[in-house]
């Protein structure tokens, strides 16, 4: 029963979020974060960012990918299927209806006014989330965030570098960083061992002297 309740909640929440994901792509991440991290506590803040990274690097629509990851985390494969269904129903229904009335829709003054207003609202929502996420990130890892965030922003916004290369680049830097830390740790351990050995010798000699 509890499982059914969670599935239903997952379905209705995905449906609700998808119906408001104007602008596509990353807009869904702030909405998911608000619902699943802050309201429902089904995910942690960092997990949400990791899921966003995976959703972005895999083929397909980010919103659908993010829904799959979220559903999988919450209820396994069944959860993933339910989240996909919730995410694709709103655009399917809306587009089906619009494709019948396209001309009337495009020229409708009220529709255009509402959509322009919503665009400004969407911009504010993204801005809000970026501020929150950036602050959390800087708190956790000051120098890394201070370097990575501006560099990636300039690369993607001004230089139009493909997101796939950015993600691959970050993975590469992560691997290098891991290796460097690993080597450093090994060296420290070696030194530590060297010190231990001399300590032992010293105590041995003392013992020997005392015995003598």
């Amino acid at each position: 029963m509890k499982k059914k309740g969670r599935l239903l909640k997952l379905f209705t929440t995905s449906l609700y979020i998808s119906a408001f994901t104007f602008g596509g792509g990353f807009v869904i991440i702030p909405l998911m974060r608000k619902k699943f991290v802050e309201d429902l506590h089904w995910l942690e803040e960092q997990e949400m960012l990791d899921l966003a990274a995976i959703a972005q690097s895999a083929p397909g629509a980010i919103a659908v990918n993010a829904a799959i990851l979220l559903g999988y985390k919450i209820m396994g494969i069944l959860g993933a299927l339910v989240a996909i269904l919730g995410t694709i129903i709103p655009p399917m229904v809306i587009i089906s209806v619009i494709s019948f009335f396209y001309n009337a829709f495009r020229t409708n003054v009220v529709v255009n006014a509402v959509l322009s207003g919503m665009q400004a609202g969407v911009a504010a929502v993204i801005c809000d989330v970026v501020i929150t996420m950036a602050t959390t990130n800087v708190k956790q890892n000051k120098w890394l965030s201070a370097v990575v965030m501006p560099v990636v922003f300039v690369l993607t916004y001004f230089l139009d570098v493909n997101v796939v290369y950015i993600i691959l680049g970050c993975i590469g830097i992560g691997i290098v960083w891991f290796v460097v830390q690993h080597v450093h740790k090994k060296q420290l351990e070696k030194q530590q061992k060297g010190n231990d050995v001399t300590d032992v010798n010293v105590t041995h000699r003392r013992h020997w002297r005392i015995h003598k």
Partner: protein
Amino acid sequence: MNIYIELLLVFMQVGALSIGGGYAAIPIIQSRVVEQYAWLTLSDFTDLITIAEMTPGPIAINSATFVGMQVAGIGGAVVATIGCIIPSAIIVSLLAFLYFKFRSLDIVKDILTVLRPAIVALIASAGLGIIILAFWGTEGFTTDTSALNIVSVMIFALSLFLLRKYKLNPIAVMSGAGALGAVFYLLL
């Protein structure tokens, strides 16, 4: 070949090849749907992108539904949309499995530590694009104050204030922004 199978196969390609989401799907849809199969004219296709931008949902899904609908009715819409998500469903489920299994490894942790601030920057970049579209109605970067849409700036500022200060629900804020837009643009 059966039209449903054709739709399914074409949109599976769209789903599998559009890495990076959103606008990455457009060139692939264009090459298959407009150039190869002539299911839509180029002007239909431009309209389709406009609709996709004006309505919620990913462009790939919107296109699949729209094209399927035009070519083979509701059945076509369903088949094309399913085709579009099959590659994601398989690949992303696998990635999800791997992520939850291996994320506690040190090397995966280090990679994720570098990726997180990068993702924040990517979201910021998408956000700036939408802010510029809302304020100026254009896609590219601009600082021309004379073409600024004041109503849009005011709605933006008010929404941001309510979100930061009172932590209002984003969906409530967006609906309110839509209502404000209707009031301002229709009255002024």
